């Protein structure tokens, strides 16, 4: 990765998370968590988005998801300061930090899925890294086309996913590592949304979110949360989380 001074043009990042009707009816808190953040390095500004979905059957799912977001952010920040380090180290660091974050709670009681998107400037390009463990969906729309990552593994049903805190292997992490130039849109969805949006409609969802971009932040957040609460799928019950990130081209 080369160092460059750059100016980000027209980047947008927003997201929302709402408790699903089943949790609301049971007086339970939202067990999804998300963040978007960015930081400067000596080669430019790094963008990071995370979505974690605590496994509903676990007593500390909410804590696990929130710890997942913190761990992913910390891991990404640390890893991004070592350009050229293998992505496998990022995954291992995230796993270790998550266990430290949930301690002294048993990891199994805090199990959570994890989606991470990381955009690192690399000269005039972006290096985009998507990581996914468990269900939910990550998508990136770039000049090279739309790529998705995650989604429910073929052998799984709802709520039978793997995650941090469940038995899994390193190769259960799905990894997408790509270079792109120009404008990029990144989307992270918890399964409460991803399961209800067929993959061929992911570009439409991106378009729908793009339509919210230019609203004032407060109005945009309010509109997004209202849309998630009024989710049109009959009988929907899950927590729902979406993070949208658009980053402009890198200008030398």
């Amino acid at each position, binding site marked *: 990765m080369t160092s460059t001074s750059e100016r980000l043009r027209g980047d947008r990042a927003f997201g929302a998370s709402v408790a699903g009707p089943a949790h609301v009816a049971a007086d339970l808190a939202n067990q999804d968590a998300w963040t978007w953040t960015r930081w400067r390095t000596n080669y430019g500004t790094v963008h990071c988005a995370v979505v974690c979905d605590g496994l509903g*059957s676990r007593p500390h799912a909410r804590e696990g998801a929130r710890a997942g977001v913190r761990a992913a952010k910390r891991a990404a920040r640390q890893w991004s300061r070592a350009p050229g380090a293998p992505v496998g180290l990022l995954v291992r660091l995230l796993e270790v930090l998550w266990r430290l974050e949930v301690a002294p709670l048993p990891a199994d009681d805090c199990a959570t899925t994890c989606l991470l998107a990381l955009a690192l400037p690399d000269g005039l390009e972006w290096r985009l890294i998507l990581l996914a463990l468990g269900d939910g969906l990550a998508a990136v729309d770039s000049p090279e086309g739309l790529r998705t990552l995650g989604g429910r593994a073929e*052998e799984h*049903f*709802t709520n039978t996913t793997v995650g941090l805190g469940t038995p899994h292997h390193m190769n259960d992490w799905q990894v997408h590592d790509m270079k792109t130039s120009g404008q990029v849109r990144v989307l992270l969805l918890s399964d409460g949304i991803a399961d209800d*949006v067929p993959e061929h409609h992911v570009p439409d969802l991106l378009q*729908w979110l793009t339509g919210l971009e230019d609203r004032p932040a407060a109005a945009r957040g309010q509109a997004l949360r209202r849309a998630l609460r009024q989710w049109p799928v009959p009988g929907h*019950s899950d927590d729902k989380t979406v993070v949208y990130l658009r980053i402009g081209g890198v200008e030398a």
Partner: protein
Amino acid sequence: MSSGRLTLKDITVAAPRPLPVLLLLDVSGSMAEDGKLAALNTAVRDMLHAFAQEQAGGAEIHVAVLAFSGREARVHVPLKPARDVKFEALDAKGHTPLGSVLTLTTRILDNRNLVPGRAYRPTVVLVSDGVPTDEWEAPLEGLLTSPRASKAVRLALAVGEDADLKVLTRFAGEDHVRRAAEARQLRRFFRFVTMSVTARSRSATPDQVVTLPDLGADDGFDDLDL
């Protein structure tokens, strides 16, 4: 809400998440004895009626009825929403091709067109009153080792004294098998499964493990607070 002309309704699925229930029903000739088949038909009809009334939950209960007798299993009711099922009473005759129905079950559960990934974990209920008359161990192994089908919740009911409890225990595990010596216990078993599934369909955590009660005459089963 809309953004431009595109709305979320345009891009989301129109159906609730399914909660599949597969009934694997032994209708071999011996089921015609002692009122077992009549009790089974009544219990299944009551279950389907209860499922069809279940509108309030987040999940939509889907049911398939697989009957096994003669040489091989058949789909008596294909997997569909319970409210759409028109159940016709089953007849009993012939042998007990358990292996055939297990193979059919694995095939259905492994088919993502029939049981999509967004479905809740399926429940498979096996009811039998006899000893398998075909090769069943390999089909059972196939079900238990299928990455997908093996995730289903498996329950079993041994009907009468001649049922092969060992086979049913291999299928469902010791904690998920009960024996019904009389029609009343058979109906209790189905009522429990019905209540368990409907409770799951309304639950914030629909994949909680099912715990079967004892079916003894004085076990207070009727008073279970689910």
